């Protein structure tokens, strides 16, 4: 029998009690257990950033954390952070600037960009590029993403398009 673990966790502000396979990753639990499919699975080895989510406020890779590790923790996914309105400015900037094409990397990019702007409200283009260097995007070539984030930098040269 597959070893199971009981967990109690807060997901997007709602308390969740579940019995999960001990080997299940957090992103798989969110996607297949809770049907929160906004966190995407791109590589399952921590490189691409598509599964980015928040664990106790920190931006983490959902494929490198086990669901069992979320026991007693606070998990926030793109759906929850978006509904809370926290990303509204970034989402508007990304929309106006067409800083997404297929949209598969976008949840991870948005959460990472938000973390950057919180820690550094006025990043340069080079700093934006460096901070997002763990989020793979095959479509845009990154220029538009950098533009969109830069447009929200306080006192920067960028403007909301």
């Amino acid at each position: 029998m597959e070893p199971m673990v009981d967990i109690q966790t807060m997901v997007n502000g709602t308390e969740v009690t579940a019995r999960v396979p001990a080997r299940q990753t957090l992103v798989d639990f969110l996607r297949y257990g809770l049907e929160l499919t906004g966190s995407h699975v791109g590589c399952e080895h921590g490189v691409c950033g598509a599964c980015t989510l928040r664990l106790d406020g920190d931006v983490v890779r959902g494929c490198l954390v086990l669901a069992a590790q979320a026991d007693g923790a606070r998990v926030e996914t793109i759906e929850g952070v978006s509904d809370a309105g926290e990303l509204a400015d970034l989402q508007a900037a990304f929309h106006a600037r067409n800083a997404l094409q297929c949209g598969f990397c976008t949840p991870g990019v948005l959460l990472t960009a938000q973390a950057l702007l919180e820690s550094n409200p006025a990043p340069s283009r080079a700093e934006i590029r460096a901070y997002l260097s763990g989020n793979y995007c095959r479509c845009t070539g990154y220029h538009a993403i950098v533009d969109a984030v830069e447009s929200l930098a306080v006192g920067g040269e960028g403007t909301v398009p």
Partner: protein
Amino acid sequence: MSDTGLHAILDRPNSYIGRSVPRPNLRRLLQGRGRFVDDIRLPRMVHVAFVRSPYAHARIDAIDTAAAKASPAVVAVVTGAELAAYCTPWVGVLSHLEGLKSAPQHAIAVEKACWQGEAVAAVVAESRAAAEDGVERVSVQWQELAPVADMERALDAETPVIHADLGDNLAWQRRFEAGDVDAAFAAGTVVEETFSFGRHTGVTLEPRAILASYEAAEERLTVYHSNQAPHMMQNIFATHLGLEEHNVQVICGDVGGSFGIKVHAYADEMAAAALSVMLRRPVKFIADRLESFVTDIHARDHRVQGRMAIADDGRITGLEIDDLTGIGPYSVYPRTSGIEANQIVNLTGAQYTCENYRAATRVVFQNKVPMCQYRAVGHPIATAVTEGLVDAAAAAIGMDPIEVRRRNLIADDAYPCKAPTGLSFERLSHQRALARLVELMDYDGLRAEQERRRGDGVYLGIGIATFLELTNPSAMFYGVGGARISAQEGCTLRLDAKGNVICMAGVTEQGQGAEAVMAQVTATAVGVTLDRVRVITGDTDVTPYGGGTWASRAAGIGGEAAVQAGKALRAQILEVAGIVLQAEPASLDIRAGRVVDKADGRDRVGLDEIARIAYFRADTLPKDFQSELVATRHYVPKQYPFAFTNGAQASWLEVDIETGFVTLLKHWAVEDCGTVINPQLVDEQIRGGIVQGIGAALFEHCLYDDQGQLLNGSMMDYLTPMAAEMPDIEVAHIETPTDDSELGAKGAGEAGTAGAPAAVVNAINDALRPLGARLNAHPATPERILAALGTVAEG
């Protein structure tokens, strides 16, 4: 304002054509509420994982499935021989690539595996994890066979033949000659280079994904598929699974990137569909990243020897190429793996006036992942070879590389004209594009800075690439060769009961903005505001027949279908309005969703009112009149087999000669895709394409050992372009509309990828020139740069 001119649609009032309006479908993606295949769950759904060959070439002596069948939550374990009863094999050939041959390929290998990663058995279970547990318990008895790894030796007499029935490992070859090539090389200064283009792959962030659901009672198959061409796949599923085509529905919802990766019939996807028929329940297959590297088609893998003859006045007088490419063990179905080689023969040197041209290509089988069409098919190779030779020739006669290009690019007033290979060019703007590029990048300023910094030991390089792009293909591309790949595109527009317009289109959305473009054209052609248009794509039960998205065709061909459907629906609406208003329909127009007097724009009635009367109060209309508020139009290019576009790119970079590392400082592109429907979307296609080309030029390489084993099949080991290393990219446009359509739009999806590798590698060579070093191997890795400098030995 004219209703009848060649490009009348461009004169519509309140036009959305040429405007950077935001894409309507982005909100759900920004909230993580897209609907990708893996987001869909169906009742009784099971998951499949595959047992894959660890060898590049091996006979399957026996497969023991007993332990896997006893594994928890496993539903079925199926071998190739068992699945063959549900899915017939296919052969990837096209009759117009005369002589192209390939062997029958099964959904799951039956007798032997021909590449490392080919599926030899399927395990179906209640979860993907349980299926993978089952895979580990399948035991295969292998008999290793000698692999064909090196394409250079694939045709040697002592090399084993992969498919004995084919006689040899030569899939296809083509030779072409025009003019007097020998005389040209006898007279001019001659440069000669050998170029290599490593295998790379698409690495779509969403891996390949399929969910097939068979309803036995109706013999009906529904397939949710991350794919570019739903109607093509509908035909392929029906053909090989023995179903009626109208009983197969293919739905392509949100697709997480495709770039040509998701336009082929993959064996494991066919297997998933066949398993659904066999097991009579929904079967999901999502490739994980490690299996993507050994099953997604690979691209390129060419070695090209090139020669160019140039006169002292800078005229290119002769060009010769000899191309060799390794395509893996099968020509991929249904597009075949011969097209890229064919494109290289057709496109090399085609931007220049030189008429003495000789080309040869050989396409060989080998035991590696199958190779097929990926973004910009053949273009990056043709461009890198041509433009690499031009730079070498310019250096040989001591002329500035811009000046050599000016003297040889086809003049902007020379059209229509033909290339030596017979390609027809309607109207291109090579000279203007190059002039615009020189101005945009401040070429003279950069040359001065380069010179100045060399004094400080800093090696900066400028690389130029002029190029063509094949777009808007007619049936001459695939249909003529017997493939059921539609070149024509359909669009249906329907007025709803509130006066909104529903647009159903055969083109598909991969993130490039096809739905936005269709909405813009529809809104313009009918005369409504953009928020009144809803676009539906990617469902064979709903949309008119079409080819989908490939070869930079969605905007140009799908867009024209929308123009014609929009005009037809407008006429139908105005017919009703004419009756209601007792006016001549020809005296009326539709603007911003209101019927107005055409002459002075006076407001008459809203489309909501027209719809209300037509749908609910037909009793108030004349008895001999029936309103029709839905229109379908189809379009295929007719005057030209392809709408060629053109452009020029420049790369500005620094090479650290101590480490071999390249720092990209800036990239510029000037591009002419005819009518620009949405400038922002075109710019982003160009930028994304350029970065894909940069990946090929600097990083991406599927490395194999001499046993045909892929050595770097993970994202830890295979380098893709990331944000920190990429430059800012400036894009400018020239607009030369095609007269083949009213819209005048040509394609833009592949131009960036076509030119970027040539520009980057030329810039590296430009930086290294004072040191007497040169390299023509893509990707130009630090190791290869140091080898070119003589710092380290050749790897």
